[in-house]
């Protein structure tokens, strides 16, 4: 069949099928993101996606927009520079739990603190998938991973709590199963002014779920169906995820807070010159002669 999938226009079709495993939730997260962008009315040219390293980080390579696949943990500062150089761009950081919260943790909290105007989509599969299933900052207590063969000794972060405490203006969590609400939430996050975080709980059937005997991707989705509780406005300090038990999802934080650039404008007053607000595409230069390299 040669029909085009309705989402193909936002994908780099020569890169599909993607590298993610059968039953991995990342494809679903990407599909939801594409739906959200298609519905949002944001012009495609203004969309920039920045990702880090890891399975989720590969998202940038599949999206047919200006996309940047940066180093491990550093998607957020790269996106910060991109945003401040051209505030008319819509910047989305799309990366995984290990990338954003462990090595990138410092950048996550500071960019939330500054309330930089960008959207961060964090896909949480509770381990480092790309490198083979090691434990990470969101691995639940007692879970088995390749670096926690006796069960994880460490308490995990609760990403909504971290984001809310750092000052994010929109914090939501959904599972990969709950696609309609996820699309709506991503749409809200894209339109939100300020630092918005959407955490997506996603299966990792090849690694985390297999090592913890949780079955296939489908079995994990069934677990989400059984255990998910929607609590909009829940206290972010009380939404931690354990190895078994309830998963609290919903929109936890949605506040109005001045963004970094709002405060810059306020402080600088009339000193604030804005030539860098308006980016005109650079003129195509006239005929140039290019000297060839030596030899």
């Amino acid at each position, binding site marked *: *069949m040669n*029909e085009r*999938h*309705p*989402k*193909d226009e936002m*994908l780099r079709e020569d890169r*599909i*099928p*993607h590298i*993610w*495993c*059968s*039953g*991995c*939730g*990342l*494809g*679903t997260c*990407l*599909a*939801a993101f594409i*739906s959200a962008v298609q519905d949002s009315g944001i012009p495609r040219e203004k969309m920039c996606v920045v990702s880090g390293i890891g399975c989720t980080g590969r998202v940038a390579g599949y999206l047919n927009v200006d996309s940047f696949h940066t180093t491990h943990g550093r998607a957020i500062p790269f996106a910060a520079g991109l945003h401040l150089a051209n505030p008319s761009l819509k910047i989305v950081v799309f990366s995984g739990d290990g990338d954003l919260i462990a090595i990138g943790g410092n950048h996550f909290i500071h960019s939330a603190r500054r309330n930089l105007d960008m959207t961060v989509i964090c896909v949480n599969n509770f381990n480092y998938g790309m490198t083979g299933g090691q434990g990470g900052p969101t691995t639940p207590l007692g879970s088995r991973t390749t670096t926690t063969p006796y069960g994880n000794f460490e308490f995990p972060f609760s990403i909504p709590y971290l984001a809310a405490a750092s000052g994010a203006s929109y914090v939501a969590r959904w599972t990969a*199963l709950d*696609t*309609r609400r996820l*699309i709506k939430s991503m749409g809200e996050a894209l339109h939100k002014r300020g630092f918005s975080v959407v955490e997506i709980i996603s299966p990792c059937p090849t690694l985390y779920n297999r090592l913890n005997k949780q079955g*296939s*991707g*489908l079995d994990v*989705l*069934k677990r989400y169906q059984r255990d998910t509780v929607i609590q909009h406005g829940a206290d972010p300090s009380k939404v931690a995820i354990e190895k078994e038990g309830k998963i609290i999802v919903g929109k936890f934080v949605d506040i109005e807070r001045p963004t970094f650039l709002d405060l810059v404008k306020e402080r600088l007053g009339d000193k604030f010159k804005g030539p860098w607000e308006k980016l005109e595409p650079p003129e195509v230069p006239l005929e140039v002669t290019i000297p060839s390299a030596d030899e």
Partner: protein
Amino acid sequence: MKEASTAEKPKYWRTPLDLDKLKIPKGKLHLIKERCKGCSFCVEYCPRDVLELSLEFNSKGYHFPIASHEEKCVNCKLCEMLCPEFAIFCEEVETEVEKVGK
């Protein structure tokens, strides 16, 4: 969620007043076989049980779904939203308004 019966006409415990204006959409399924990785999300979560995994497989060895009850598809697009592989989508098929009640 109430299970719809396999009969064509749904049974109502109370007939809605605008039943004669009610139009149940119909969907046509499209499957891009080669992209499928056999995860079965669509098969499991189709609310109308339209899909089942076929016995054939694609060139990568995955069993892809087929629409064994395509006439029941109502274009809810849940399969399209859940599919991680961009392998399945449905489009609305124009039908005349069916009179589903008296």
